[in-house]
């Protein structure tokens, strides 16, 4: 007798009983599910069952095997009807034989509960009033019922030895991937691929937290966590993997500890330092793919270069307030990389505004969940998307645009010298108690704020030049290269970025005022 089978004919219980009979068994428990004449207050006339047979049989067999292992019973089987059934007919039968009655009852209960939860069977109820409706059987089961059974079997009380007397097998707590294995695209083979797979995750912040959680929870066997930051109180609203007790601790270290609870069988490598062009190559060489969850352009482009050089897939995402961008790089001749799209790597600090960028937690969470999805598809060997694209999401207006991207013929994709920050920011920044002191040092003060910013806050007398960043960037204004300059903006972010850019263009003496005008109390 098959452990789990579908039948279009009435279930032969005598045959089932015969198949499970065993002289070593002292007990035999069965459950029969019948078609009843009402459901949720409606009078039912007859029922129709439909199943996704190939998948359902495999899941059913797995459940029966689990019950035998969990409760140590000798034999178990289940038969489910499909097709049209009249009132009173038997829809499902479960039989269990074992040495003692307790485990026979428990295993029988486990099988019927799990079958109702996990096996894809749909029930169409035909009501007396002529109406009909499909009901997913998962909804019929009592939620929590089987959970308590499973929990009881899986976690014996502390200090309690194996319960041989009751035939209950001791099972270590471990994640059960049944609900994803049930997907035809995953299956046992896919689960094996995930277990054998590995991912390097750059950044354990708003994007990285959901990426790490879902990759670990899905059973990815080896995960590298790169983040040099410490948990801050202002992180928690969008990084709920951490708690207030973690404030001040290394994100990568805390994340690894949490993820081990999700999947104790996986390996987690902690890299509690900032990713850069050099260490990325060493780290990524040991993983199947990289998920970029960083928050700055220089890291993103270093991740891109490392992926291109090593021929590894990379899953990129970025967020700005309510918006997000998602792009996958695949090491294929026809696939664009990040530099195909952005030939000039943007300099951090020059895009966006100086004010602290706000964000609501679900925005990076949504993008991070999509990154995890793309990464799982890559590890499973599933098609990632029909054609390369940059996906742009607006979660405030709820728009999703898929912008098709092609390889840029000007981007050769060939391994190139990795970009490194040539100039240490410390060599670019100077602090002054006030603007008068800055001016006394002999530097020319250049206010790079936009005109509308100056309208509300104009430190009279000290600023020599007003050259808006926007005009400088588009070449509508320029600084004579021979001068010595102190760039100032509202908070010192844009001025630092611009100082770095001008230095790399050959300006010998361009500096940025630390903290901007806010720091000198203008």
């Amino acid at each position: 007798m098959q452990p789990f089978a579908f039948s279009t004919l009435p279930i032969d219980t005598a045959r089932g009983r015969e198949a499970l009979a065993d002289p070593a068994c002292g007990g035999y428990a069965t459950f029969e599910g019948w078609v009843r004449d009402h459901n949720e207050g409606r009078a039912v006339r007859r029922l129709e069952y439909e199943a996704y047979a190939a998948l359902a049989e495999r899941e059913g067999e797995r459940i029966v095997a689990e019950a035998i292992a969990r409760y140590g019973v000798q034999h178990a089987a289940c038969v489910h009807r499909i097709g049209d059934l009249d009132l009173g007919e038997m829809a499902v039968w479960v039989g269990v034989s074992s040495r003692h009655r307790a485990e026979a009852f428990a295993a029988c209960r486990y099988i019927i509960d799990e079958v109702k939860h996990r096996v894809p069977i749909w029930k169409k109820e035909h009501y007396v009033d002529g109406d009909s409706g499909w009901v997913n059987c998962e909804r019929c089961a009592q939620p929590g019922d089987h959970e308590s059974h499973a929990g009881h079997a899986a976690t014996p009380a502390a200090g309690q030895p194996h319960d041989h007397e009751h035939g209950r097998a001791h099972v270590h707590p471990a994640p059960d991937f049944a609900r994803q294995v049930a997907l035809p695209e995953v299956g046992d083979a896919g689960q094996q691929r995930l277990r054998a797979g590995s991912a390097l995750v750059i950044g354990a912040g708003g994007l990285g937290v959901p990426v790490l959680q879902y990759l670990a929870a899905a059973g990815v066997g080896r995960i590298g966590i790169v983040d040099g930051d410490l948990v801050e109180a202002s992180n928690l609203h969008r990084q709920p993997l951490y708690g207030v007790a973690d404030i001040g601790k290394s994100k990568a270290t805390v994340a690894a500890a949490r993820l081990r609870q999700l999947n104790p069988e996986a390996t987690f490598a902690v890299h509690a330092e900032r990713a850069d062009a050099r260490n990325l190559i060493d780290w990524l060489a040991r993983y199947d793919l990289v998920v970029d969850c960083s928050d700055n352009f220089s890291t993103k482009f270093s991740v891109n270069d490392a992926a291109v050089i090593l021929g590894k897939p990379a899953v990129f995402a970025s967020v700005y307030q309510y918006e997000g961008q998602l792009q996958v790089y695949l090491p294929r001749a026809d696939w664009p990389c990040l530099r195909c799209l952005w030939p000039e790597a943007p300099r951090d600090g020059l895009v966006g505004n100086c004010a602290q960028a706000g964000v609501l937690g679900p925005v990076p969470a949504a993008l991070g969940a999509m990154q995890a999805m793309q990464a799982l598809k890559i590890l499973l060997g599933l098609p990632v998307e029909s054609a390369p694209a940059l996906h742009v999401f607006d979660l405030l207006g709820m728009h999703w645009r898929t912008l098709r991207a092609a390889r840029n013929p000007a981007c050769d994709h060939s391994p190139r010298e990795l970009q490194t920050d040539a100039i240490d920011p410390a060599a670019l920044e100077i602090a002054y108690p006030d603007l008068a002191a800055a001016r006394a040092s002999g530097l020319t003060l250049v206010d790079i704020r936009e005109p509308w910013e100056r309208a509300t806050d104009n430190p009279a007398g000290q600023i020599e030049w007003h050259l808006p960043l926007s005009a400088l960037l588009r070449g509508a204004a320029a600084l004579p290269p021979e001068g010595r300059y102190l760039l100032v903006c509202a908070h010192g972010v844009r001025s630092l970025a611009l100082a770095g850019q001008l230095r790399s263009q050959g300006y010998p003496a361009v500096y940025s005022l630390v903290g901007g005008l806010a720091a000198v109390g203008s």
Partner: protein
Amino acid sequence: MKKITLQYFAVLREQAGCSEEHLATAATTPAELYEEVRVRHGFTLPLSMLRVAVNEEFRDWSSPLEANDRVVFIPPVAGG
């Protein structure tokens, strides 16, 4: 003059004060169109830092614009 639909993201959306607008323009390329709206909205980003997509496909700044095109200007974003 042709009618086109323009969509803004990130810092452009903030500076334009809207995420989408319909306008009639004499611009023949995305580059001309950007210059037109840059002046009107006071956009701070230079064209060299942006990418443009027309009808859901990335395009060159000098590609021709047609009536009823849907144009999206995209700044790079890095938040994580």
